[in-house]
């Protein structure tokens, strides 16, 4: 636990230099904060050459699935030429 607290402190101090903006700015903006654990997955490293990593379109998809309903997105997904994805147990643990 001590190690975790120390690591947290180090990360927050380091991140403060990146996210410096002041209390007032933080209150005005809607900010999503994510702790990403996967080493090298979105930092330069072993995945070089795959046009992957932290590309701006990493959050951009052609297919959407609503985690609440299990229904998949665009109509062409349902038109018979595409593989169908069943809803069901994947929603385990959903609030």
């Amino acid at each position, binding site marked *: 636990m001590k190690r975790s607290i120390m690591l947290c402190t180090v990360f927050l101090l380091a991140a403060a230099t990146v996210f410096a903006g002041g209390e007032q700015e933080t209150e005005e903006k809607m900010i999503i904060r994510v702790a990403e654990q*996967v080493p090298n997955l979105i930092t330069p490293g072993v995945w070089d050459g795959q*046009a992957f990593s932290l590309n701006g379109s*990493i959050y*951009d998809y052609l297919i959407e699935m609503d985690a609440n309903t299990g229904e998949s997105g665009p109509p*062409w997904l349902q038109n018979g030429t595409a593989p169908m994805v069943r809803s069901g147990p994947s929603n*385990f643990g*959903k609030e």
Partner: protein
Amino acid sequence: MYTLERTQDPDIGHLKAQDFENLEKIATPDDHTVVITLKEAAPTFNFIFTDYNMAILSSDYDYASKGESAPMGTGPFKLEKLVPKESALLVKNSDYWAEGLPKADELRIYFVPDIDSSVSLLEAGEVDIVPQISPIIKKRLESMDGFKVVSPYQESRFIALADDREPFSDNRVRLAFKYSMDPEILAKACQGTLGETIFYNETPIVNALAQYKKIPFRGRDIDKAKELLAEAGYPDGLSVDFFYASDHPYGSDIAQTLKELAAPAGIELNLKGFPRDIYLSQHWMDGPMLLTGWGVRVDPSMLLMLAYHSEGPWNESHIDNPRIDELIEKIRGEVDPEVRQTYYDELQQIFHEEGTVINLQVPYLVGVSDAVTDYRQPLTMLPQLEYTTIK
């Protein structure tokens, strides 16, 4: 066009090189239309674009010299500042194609390689979202006020038995290992219930997909396993190194359980657990037995080509089965869904009889604070944070 053309650049070694070999020509008749002509029929071709390594890139970007130091693309957020291995600040892309999105102004990503530290940050209110938590942490967060756990989909843990080296190069040894399994116990080790939250089969196709063929579990049969080992030349049992990521959710629990299940059959697993980055960079793709986390591809032929075709770039079990190669190629080219399914069925039957994988499917778990609303993460694995809001 540039995004597609660069997949064929031999200097890049793009993971999708094989998938896009089928391109005959690409045309852009206007600013918002791309017309792709294929050499051969490929009814599920569209799905290749959903893979996470198919981000849209601009030809203006000098990837060769900049790498990922100044990312660009078409997404809802733009990178403002990146400190490698520490943090990244992304801001709203005001030119994003979907009107009204993203809802948040900023996305702050902290690279925290330790799950306990990540959860401590969540509990302290310093972050809002922690992906890839373990079932133990799930229980803890659910017992506390102010947090919830989201499980948007199942993901695979592939137990890969290398086809090109002893002892698993002999199918009788692979079968012996499979006969020593007990899916119910594995499900308990993953803090779940078989058939409800945990799924098990011996093919690359996950149970939730329509292409899945239901094949009854062969049953745990230690005598049969010993008999097969003796036939394969291991009457006194065998010992094999088993590599896995010890800090990946479920990793250590699955590894320890496999060791205990296989021991009575005379298969001793030497557990070689490493932090995930070490595992992926130094041991993955190069061990007689591996445990690797795999995300589901919405079209399974993408995964088959990637990991189970003899020429697949991520063929971690080094499988080299001409009939499986042939079936994968037929699946990718068959227009009739019913005929295509017959190929899927045959492929899964082959995997059941002589395959190189056990596919244990576990819930992907994300810990979030109650302040988070509309967290979405589709089967394509990447979170759609453009919809997410913070109260």
